[in-house]
């Protein structure tokens, strides 16, 4: 896999000063700016809602800024300023495609991103030992001091999965861009290797794989609530009695049903920000199903989510002659 572009870019750290200046600039035009600040420990960032100049100082951007902040946007009444990475920006494009946000009420600060870390991996490595200090050395490695001592990580070794195949490091839509645009060398099919690889397994293997994974599901709906495109949120049919698709039982059929609902409702909409998977406390690869559908959307309709504001989500339109769909005659 080719990392050069990441490495090379990491040597140019982003100036948080520049970011804060931009924020204070747009804070004059909007009611709230959504950014990141550091959370309960030095390796956890957390979304930061800035309504007051004083709060700007806290805002940061670094490899721990994993959250896709756009998830808060749909149906937000106020004028919002938001900081997005390349991947996050695709959500905005998708929102606009679906008319879920009004561009006018939005000010976008784009940040070309060279990848964020998978905090779970780090926690795994340090055995969940409390982190006292974290340092980014020469922009390619991390020094993390825990109660049990110090540990060093090559950032690329703990990079979030989605970053390893990131095709859009630079935001696709923004009002202000901070830092130099980054290009990705990663081809479309490369990004979907995991899907195609997994699909090679036998049906039995795949079924038992998902059974094992869903077995862990506790139906906390973190995957759903973290998903920026799950617009139903509180009205999700997974919790409703009318329609009554899923019972409240905690058995596999219910879990399968729920994850089918999640995936199918995101058909041609999922921008693969990976928040569902990141939010899952049980480590279920919830994103895979959606990626699979996206893969097929590309095959069928040559459609990629969140790239072009003028596209139409494929499930809400049609062609009289579908070139790629061959009717399934027996």
């Amino acid at each position, binding site marked *: 896999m080719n990392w050069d572009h990441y490495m090379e870019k990491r040597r140019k750290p982003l100036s948080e000063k520049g970011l804060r200046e931009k924020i204070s600039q747009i804070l004059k035009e909007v009611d709230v700016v959504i950014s990141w600040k550091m959370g309960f420990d030095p390796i956890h960032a957390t979304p930061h809602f800035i309504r007051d100049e004083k709060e700007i100082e806290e805002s940061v951007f670094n490899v721990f800024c994993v959250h896709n902040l756009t998830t808060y946007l749909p149906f937000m009444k106020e004028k919002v300023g938001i900081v997005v990475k390349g991947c996050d920006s695709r959500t905005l494009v998708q929102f606009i495609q679906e008319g879920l946000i009004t561009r006018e009420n939005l000010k976008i600060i784009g940040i070309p991103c060279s990848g964020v870390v998978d905090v779970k991996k780090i926690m795994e490595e340090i055995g969940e030992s409390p982190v006292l200090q974290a340092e980014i050395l020469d922009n390619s490695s991390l020094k993390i001091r825990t109660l049990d001592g110090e540990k060093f990580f090559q950032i690329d070794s703990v990079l979030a999965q989605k970053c390893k195949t990131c095709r859009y490091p630079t935001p696709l839509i923004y009002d202000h861009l901070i830092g130099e645009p980054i290009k990705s060398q990663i081809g479309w099919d490369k990004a979907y290797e995991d899907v195609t690889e997994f699909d090679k397994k036998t049906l039995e293997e795949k079924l038992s794989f998902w059974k094992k994974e869903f077995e862990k599901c506790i139906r906390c709906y973190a995957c759903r609530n973290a998903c920026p495109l799950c617009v139903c949120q509180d009205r999700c049919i997974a919790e409703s009695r009318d329609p009554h698709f899923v019972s409240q039982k905690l058995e596999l059929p219910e879990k399968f049903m729920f994850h089918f609902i999640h995936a199918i409702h995101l058909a041609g909409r999922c921008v693969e920000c990976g928040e569902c998977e990141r939010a899952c406390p049980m480590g279920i690869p919830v994103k895979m199903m959606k990626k699979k559908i996206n893969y097929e959307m590309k095959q069928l309709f040559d459609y990629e989510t969140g790239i072009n504001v003028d596209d139409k989500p494929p499930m*809400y339109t049609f062609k009289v002659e579908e070139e790629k769909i061959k009717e399934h005659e027996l």
Partner: protein
Amino acid sequence: MRVGVFICHCGNNIAGTVDVQKVAEEMRKIPGVAYATTYMYTCSEPGQNEIIEAIKKYNLNRVVVAACSPRMHELTFRKTIEKAGLNRYFLEMANIREHISWVGDDRELNTKKAIDVVRMAIAKVMNNKPLYSSSFRVNKRVLVIGGGVAGMQAALDCADGGLEVVLVEKTQSIGGMMARLDKTFPTIDCSICILGPKMVDVAQHEKIKLYAYSEIEDVKGYIGNYQVTIRKKATYVDWKKCTGCGLCMEKCPSKNAYDYFNFGIAPTRAISIPFPQAIPKKAKIDPNYCRYLTKGKCGVCAKICPTKAIDYDMKDELVVEEVGAIIVATGYSLMGVENFPEYGGGRYADVITGIQYERILNASGPTAGHIKRPSDGKEPETVVFIACCGSRDKSLGIPYCSNFCCMYIAKQAILTKDHLPNSQSYVFYMDIRAPGKGYDEFTRRAQEEYGVKYIRGRVSKIYPKGDKLIVKGADTLLGVQAEVEADLVVLANAVISNPDAAKLAEKLRISYDTFGFYVESHPKLRPVETNTSGVFLAGACQGPKDIPASVSQGSAAASKVLSLFSKDMLESDPQVSYVNPNICVGCMKCVKTCPFGAIKEEELRDGRKVAKVIETVCAGCGICTSTCPCGAIQLQHFTDNQILAEVNAFVSGK
């Protein structure tokens, strides 16, 4: 919940292969089923009374009828339970005839299947809600598409019935195919003489608004309230000024325009009036041949037109008409002669089609009624008619019979004899189909009185010999080769649907068969209705028809419209979608997918934006329901829970 289940024997149709008693027994075991019985003919009057009495006796509040297809009798039984005071939507039908007893022989398995299917119906009916139809105003204007004899008849009947009629004709004049005919069978009376007056009536009727040389651009709305956009094609002649004097036609230097009215049997002018009796009698320029419009110079007609009606810059114009019902009478087309190479069609000038010959016979035709063959204008002595050219020919994809060829061949043969007493006509045919009143007699007259020689058999090929055409064929009755030296060959070419029939059907949302003919709702019982309420059919657009059939369908369609409009308000079908504003999150995906634009955005008091269904526009397809991610918009009577209830009742077996 007190469900009553009524299982129909349908004589032996169902009871023959389904143990209806067993089914009833099983249903009795189901909690919530307060009554289950079987009946010989549930749809019969006593059968329906049984239901009504049972409802009262056992105070049932839901009814399941297991019988034939709901497409057949759902309405019947809805009315039945309504009589007994139940809301009509508390009925479900289980189709145990078409889907079970008629398609399976294994009594045991059929019975098992019937039990499941009835259980599913019970599961659904338990989830049914009472629905009430609201009523809406009807716009008592009717659109008639097509000014042929069927369309004219429909238009006149409607207009005489007091309705405002909008008549849209694609060509320059109304009259259609009939206006082109010389005489009509079996009476041999002059076609235009009987059609002409009708055409004048149409023109003069104050209730009929005629759009000639116009086409349907777009159809919006629903029964009672359609908005139809009509494209008035540019004629380059201001018809308000044109008096139809015909001066322009005489003077027009472009003499080789294709004559659609005469099926190209002879050329016409670039500016023309198709025929003397044309209605409206107005000139029209054919832009493909007009020198001014093609080359930019000429302008003769403009110069000589006494009323200065010529307008070379004329553009198409779109007008919108609002109507409450639509009658489709777009007629048919004919297969071109070039489709029959084996007969030298297109290669030999003297191989022509029936309709072309009709024009030659016609007094107002290019030859003024003198039979002259196209090649050299000689009067033919021997004329050969070939029946079923294309029709009943699977190789050309036309398995059907064109219905009236046998008759007009006989007619044309007779007329030929009348015109040229020394002539001899031959007819190659497969079968003679003359079922109508006086039809068979007519074909016999052709043979017996006019000595027309009928040869049963197909023509294998035609080739020229001198100025004659050798027609080689087989006489299957005598089992010999037949060979005729002909001066003129007339092909009874197949009736086909209009090339743009499908396009129009899609605009009207009516269905059409593989041949492009429109499909009626029921071949026997609803011959002029379509599955789209408010749209009716008349004439050959539904399939090949002769004049009397077309006329009667025209009247039939008109009477349908008249009875539809006898009410001021129509009942709206309550099986439409409904949005629960408490659940709707306002993502408006339903708005994106609704084919009818029946969903709009609405702002609630608390400022939330939600979807709202315009009931009268909603057609009840339910696309919105399967689009809505949160199940906020539900198609009444086919809600998610109703369908899921059926699914569960079967798959979970509980």
